[in-house]
C-alpha cells in the first residue's frame, strides 16, 4: 500500500505495462539505478492485485535459485521449487531485477521458460513438465552497460521481452514531487537545488567526468536529512560530495566546489 502512494507515473509507464499485460507480452525496463524501476513494478503488481515474486540477479544467482533443488529429508528425496517454477504455477508476476547481472547458464534456463510455449522441463525433478498458468507475467530490468558487474544480454533473451520501457531520471518538477512524498518539512527551494546538483553530477557522470552518478535515492535522502534538521550545505556534502573522496581529493573537491557555488558556506 505504501509503494502505491510513492510512485508518480510521469512517463505513462503504467499504460505501457497494462497494454503489455493484456497482450501477454513480457516487459523489459531499461534505466540507470535509482530511477524507480522496482517501485514501478511493485505498484503495478499491487494494482493488478497479483502476487509479486522477485529475484535480484547477481553473479551468485544460480539455476537452483530459479528452478529449485533436491532436498533430503528423513531419508526421502524431495524437491523444493525455485522462484521461477513457483511463479509459473501460481499465476503471479515474476520480477527479474538486474537480469543482465546473471551468469550465462542461468540465462539459458530462463530462456527455456520464457519462450512462446511458456514451459519448463524440470530435469532436476524427474523431468516433470511445468506449464505456466495463463496469467503468468514477467517483467525484467537492466541497468545500462556502464554499470559495474553488468553484461550485455544475449539477443535471444532480449527478444523474449518485446516491450521495452526506458526509465530515465524524471524532470526536476517530478523529482521534487517524488521527494516530497517521503518527507514532512517544506524545503522546496533547497530540494530544487539538490535536484539541480544531482542532475549536474548525473550529466558529468554520463560523459565520464565523474565516476559516480547520484540516483533518486540520494535526492530523497537529502530531503530526509534536511527534515532531521541538518543545514542544506552540510546535507549536500554528506549525501553528494563525500562519496567522491574514494577517488581522491581532486574528485571530491570538484564536486564540493560545485556545492559551494550553489549553497555557499
Amino acid at each position, binding site marked *: 500500500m505504501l509503494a502505491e502512494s510513492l510512485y508518480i507515473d510521469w512517463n505513462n509507464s503504467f499504460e505501457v505495462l497494462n497494454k503489455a499485460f493484456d497482450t501477454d507480452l513480457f516487459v523489459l525496463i531499461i534505466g540507470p539505478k535509482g530511477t524507480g524501476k522496482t517501485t514501478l513494478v511493485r505498484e503495478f503488481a499491487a494494482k493488478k492485485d497479483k502476487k509479486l515474486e522477485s529475484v535480484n540477479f547477481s553473479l551468485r544467482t544460480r539455476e537452483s535459485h530459479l528452478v529449485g533443488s533436491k532436498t533430503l529429508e528423513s531419508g526421502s528425496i524431495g524437491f523444493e521449487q525455485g522462484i521461477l517454477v513457483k511463479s509459473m504455477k501460481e499465476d503471479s508476476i515474476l520480477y527479474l531485477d538486474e537480469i543482465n547481472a546473471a551468469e550465462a547458464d542461468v540465462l539459458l534456463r530462463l530462456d527455456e521458460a520464457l519462450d512462446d510455449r511458456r514451459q519448463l522441463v524440470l530435469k532436476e525433478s524427474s523431468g516433470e513438465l511445468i506449464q505456466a498458468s495463463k496469467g503468468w507475467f514477467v517483467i525484467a530490468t537492466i541497468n545500462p552497460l556502464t554499470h559495474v558487474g553488468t*553484461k550485455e544480454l544475449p539477443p535471444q533473451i532480449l527478444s523474449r521481452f518485446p516491450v521495452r520501457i526506458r526509465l530515465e531520471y524524471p524532470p526536476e518538477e517530478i523529482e521534487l514531487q517524488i521527494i516530497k512524498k517521503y518527507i514532512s518539512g517544506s524545503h522546496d527551494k533547497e530540494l530544487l537545488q539538490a535536484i539541480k546538483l544531482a542532475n549536474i553530477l548525473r550529466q558529468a557522470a554520463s560523459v565520464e567526468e565523474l565516476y559516480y552518478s547520484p540516483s533518486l535515492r540520494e535526492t530523497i535522502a537529502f530531503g530526509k536529512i534536511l527534515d532531521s534538521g541538518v543545514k542544506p550545505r552540510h546535507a549536500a556534502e554528506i549525501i553528494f560530495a563525500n562519496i567522491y573522496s574514494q577517488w581522491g581529493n581532486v574528485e571530491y573537491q570538484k564536486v564540493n566546489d560545485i556545492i*559551494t557555488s550553489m549553497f555557499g558556506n
Partner: protein
Amino acid sequence: MQSLHFKNDTLLEIATFLVRRWSEKQKVIVGIVDQQEIQTKLKENKVIMFPLDHFYGTDFQKYRQFRTALWYESMRLKHSNKILSNDHAFGFLLNTLETRRIENRGRREWRGMDEEIIFYYGFAWLYRPLLNSLYGKSRIVEGFFQYFLLGDIKGEVTPSAFKKIKKAAEIANEAVKQAVDNNFGTDWLEKKVSEIIKILEIDPLLTIPISIPKISSGIAVSDNDFIKTIGKITKFHESDFGELNPKRIAEGKSVIEEFKVLLQETKKNENRGLSTESIGISIPSSTNVDETRIYDEDLISNLKAKFKEWKTGWREQHVNTGEEFDEETYMEGSHKPFFTDQKISIKTRIVILLDHSSSIANEELQYKKATLALCEVLSFLKVKFSVYAFNTEQKQVTCWLVKPENIKWNNLAAKRLAQIKANGGTPLAEVYSIMFSGLRSKKPDIFLTLTDGEPSDPDAVRSMVTTFKLLGIRMVAIGVGPDTASATIIANNLKRLGYENTLAVSRLNDIPNRVLNVLGRN
C-alpha cells in the same frame, strides 16, 4: 616552464570541470595562456584564462579571483550569445552591461557565489586605474565601468563628465534590470549601448586600453584596508546581494579547502619529480589546445563495453577445495565442487611509444582518436601505463612524454597528445636511446612501439631492442599500414628487428583491441 605547466595541471582539471558544470556545456575547453586578457570564444566553446600569477594579492586571493573570473566566463557561455572585443568602446560597454546581466542570471542558480563576487569586485576596485592617470575619452569610459560595477570612481573627473557617467550608469542599471526581469538576451541589451554612448559623448570605435594596475601585483594589501574596500562594495550592492559580512568575505573560508587541494597536488607532483623526468624528454606544454576533437566517444564506449569483464574485477571459478560448496556442480559430478571468486587484474606495466612521423600525417586525426581510445580504456581498466610519442621538430627528433605512469589519464594528457604534430622520419633507435635511461630504472613489463614504417636506422634499432630485452622488458611492435598487405609487410620488417612480438594493423580503430589482447595474453 615544464614544472609550471604541471603545477597548472590540477588547476586546469578543476577549472575545466567547473566551467562545464557551471555553463552546462559538456565540451567546453579551458586553456591557460600567458596573455593580457581573459577571453571566451562562444563559437569555439573555449575559455582562455591567464595564469594565476597574473592576478593580485596572496596565492589564495589569486586563486579566488581566478575561480570567480572562471564563473563569469561560464555564465557568459551560458547566457550570452555575443561577446565583443574589449578594445573599442562599443564592445567594452556591451561586455560591461552583460557582466551585470549574466551575473544576475547566474546568481539565481549559484547562490553560493555571492561572497566570491563581492570579493572579486573588491580586488577590481583596488587594481582599476585612477581616472586621472588615463588620457582622452577613455577616461570617461573607465569612469562609467567603475561607477556602474563598483559604485564609485577612483580619482577625479570634471563635474560635467561625472554627471554624464552618473546618467549613463542609471540608464544602464535600468536596462539590465529590464533585461533580467523579462529574460531579454544580449541582442536586446546591445541596442541600449548606443544610448549610453550618446550620453557619454564618445565615438563607439574609441580605442580602450587594457586596464593595467599601477600598483605592482606583488604588493599585498593590508587586511584592514581590504576589509574596508569590501565593506564599501558590499554597501553598494546591498540592494541586490543583501547584507553580507566583509570580514567573512575577505577570509573566504568556503573555498580554502579547494585551494589546499591544489597546493597538495602541486606538492605531490613536485615530489614525483615530474619536471625532470629524464633528460631529452619533453612535455608538450600548451594548454590552449582543443583535445575534444580527438575523442571518439563511440569507439571508447564500444571498447569499454567489450573489455568490461576485465573491469568488473572478479570471475567465479570452481576449485577442489574451499569454503563455499556448490551442490549443483557436485551433483553434476564435477571434481571441483567449490567455488571461489578470482580477482581479474592486469598487473602488467606497459610503456607505449607512438610514432608521429610524417607518414601518418594524412590520417593523423584518426590515429590520435584510436590511440586516445586505447589510453581511455587502459585507464578504465586501471592498467599501469605510460605514453610517449616522437616526432621531428626543427630537424631534431623530439621524444614527448604524454602520460607518466604515476599520473592518471585525463583530459590534460589528451591535450598533450592532441598537440603533437605528425612530422619527420622514424629514427627509432635515437628515440629508444633517449628513453633508455628512464626505462632502465622503471623496468616496465612490456614496451610497445606503434609505428607505421621502417625505422631509418634498422641496425641501431636491432641493437637497442636487444638491450631492452636484456633488461627483461618484453619488446612488442605493432605495424600500422593503410591496408592489410602493407601492414603485414611493415610487421614482417619489424619482426626482423628482434621484437618478441609483432602485430599488423590496417584499420586504425583496431589498435586498442590489439594492444589489449597483448595485455590479456600476458
